[in-house]
């Protein structure tokens, strides 16, 4: 496995607290885990068989030392599984399979990076921002939400204090740019004057319709775009074949697993 083998671990919740519509959960686990931004975990913490399946959550942060680790998640309550997760408290046990999937790639030749998060999609691009911040790379962040209350707290944004770096967008204009994150990105592209070869890369996660619009903006300009897709998953590690998405393979379209070959795909491959 190119990006580290998965493990099944039992952890204990450190804290699991709401901030607006988002929950942030930190879990103590037996070993420190390393992950690539965009990788995820299958998470289940509720007793009993209903709901049956664990929930895929992007890994937000990991820490610790050998023999003692922590891992953090940010999630939004969207259904019964995440509602049950949100009811767990410090000290509660939780089961995790992680790290899973193919995360974002950072080839290195790009001069600047634009990170795009729609809705709770920021949870998989913020780890990428943290990595780029650590490399002192040039990056900007575009965050979209329906309304002001649905944006993540500013202090969660890695490197977010740098002036001009963060572009907030709301559908109702209650914060930042009045419009979708894709529209803000279109403005940014219009203002962008590449000198020499196109050396911007975009990393995006959010609703599929948003990702499609971003792809339609970026791909004709030869801007390299990686998208992190969502799907219903049963296993998360490649055996159930339930989460597939159509991907181009030469002339053909084939079904690839979002949990294994993804969740991050090159946008040129995705059959939108």
């Amino acid at each position, binding site marked *: 496995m190119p990006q580290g083998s998965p493990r099944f671990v039992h952890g204990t919740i450190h804290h699991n607290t709401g901030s607006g519509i988002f929950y942030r959960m930190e879990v103590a686990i037996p070993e420190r885990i390393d992950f690539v931004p965009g990788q995820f975990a299958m998470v289940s913490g509720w007793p009993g068989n209903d709901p049956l*399946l664990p929930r895929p959550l992007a890994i937000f942060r990991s820490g610790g030392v050998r023999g003692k680790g922590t891992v953090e998640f940010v999630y939004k309550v969207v259904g019964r599984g995440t509602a049950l997760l949100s009811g767990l408290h410090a000290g509660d046990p939780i089961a995790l399979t992680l790290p899973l999937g193919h995360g974002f790639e950072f080839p290195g030749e790009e001069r600047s990076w634009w990170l795009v998060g729609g809705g709770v999609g920021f949870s998989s691009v913020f780890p990428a921002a943290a990595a780029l911040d650590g490399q002192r790379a040039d990056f900007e962040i575009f965050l979209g939400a329906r309304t002001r209350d649905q944006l993540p707290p500013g202090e969660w944004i890695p490197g977010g204090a740098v002036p001009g770096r963060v572009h907030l967008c709301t559908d109702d204009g209650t914060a930042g740019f009045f419009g979708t994150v894709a529209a803000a990105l279109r403005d940014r592209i219009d203002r962008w004057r590449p000198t020499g070869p196109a050396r911007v890369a975009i990393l995006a996660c959010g609703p599929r319709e948003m990702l499609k619009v971003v792809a339609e903006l970026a791909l004709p300009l030869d801007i390299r775009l990686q998208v992190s897709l969502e799907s219903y998953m049963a296993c998360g590690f490649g055996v*159930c074949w339930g989460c597939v998405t159509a991907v181009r393979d030469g002339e053909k379209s084939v*079904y690839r697993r979002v949990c294994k070959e993804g969740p991050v795909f090159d946008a040129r491959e995705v059959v939108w």
Partner: protein
Amino acid sequence: MTQPVPPDLSARVGSVHLKNPVMSASGTFGYGLEFTPFYDISRLGAVIVKGLSLLPTQGNAPVRIVETPAGMLNAIGLQNIGVERFVKEVAPRLDAGGAVYVANIYGRTIEEYEAVARRLSEVPALAAIELNASCPNVKEGGIAFGSNPQGLSGLTRRVRAATGKPLWVKLSPNVSDIGAIARAAEEAGADAVTLINTIVGMAVDPRTRRPLLSNVTGGLSGPAVRPVALRMVWEACKAVKIPVVGIGGIQSAVDALGFLLVGAAAVQVGTANFRNPNACIEIIDGIRDFFVREKISRLDDYRGTLLLRE
């Protein structure tokens, strides 16, 4: 102090010897190799590899799975690499896993089933072939053969003649008389029957007015099906002399013991692998602990000992 002798968990499905009665079910375990990051798969009774067809199969369009109360519906459509690529690319790597392997096979026609069985007969790593006569998610083949005794008998007889490997026939629960179906497989030469495959089900979205699965219907699995599976395994055990492999919603050692109690020779664990990659190992350990606690020295002393009021 003398160590207590650990209970003998070994099981037999016809001529196939298993170190314990817990196998991973087809379609929930890849080719086994996907689980090597989690544990040593040679600890399992056997690994049933994902269903193989003659040609590579693309599978159904997404959405392929939907969660239901204590269960899930799937309509994967048997996406797989095809028997040729399996034999050339996967089979040579199976020995490294050290497990007992059984190949699950599928065809749209009897001829396709025969061709797959013949090709797999050449793979020494395979201990047996499990005939999938019960997939509810493909338009041709599968359940079309498995839903009545005549169809199943014809298919089993032909595949029986096509391979020297032990032949297990995986039965559909979507029938009125499971005993008659199991007998048809037995009379046609099956070495064992495996049951149950998934129960055909459906889920819809009242707002969009659409089915939740692109295939409209799918196969229900998970704890929701377990009581149905247990009843059918019990009935099949009474109907045939060949070994019955029990499967359906097993999540724990207690669940597995139920199937062994009604007479199953061994069990398969499927959907539980999705929720907990270590499920099979925890079930094996749980069975061993139960036997130690109950002072049962051998699996054979426990199997099929269900007590009924006379």
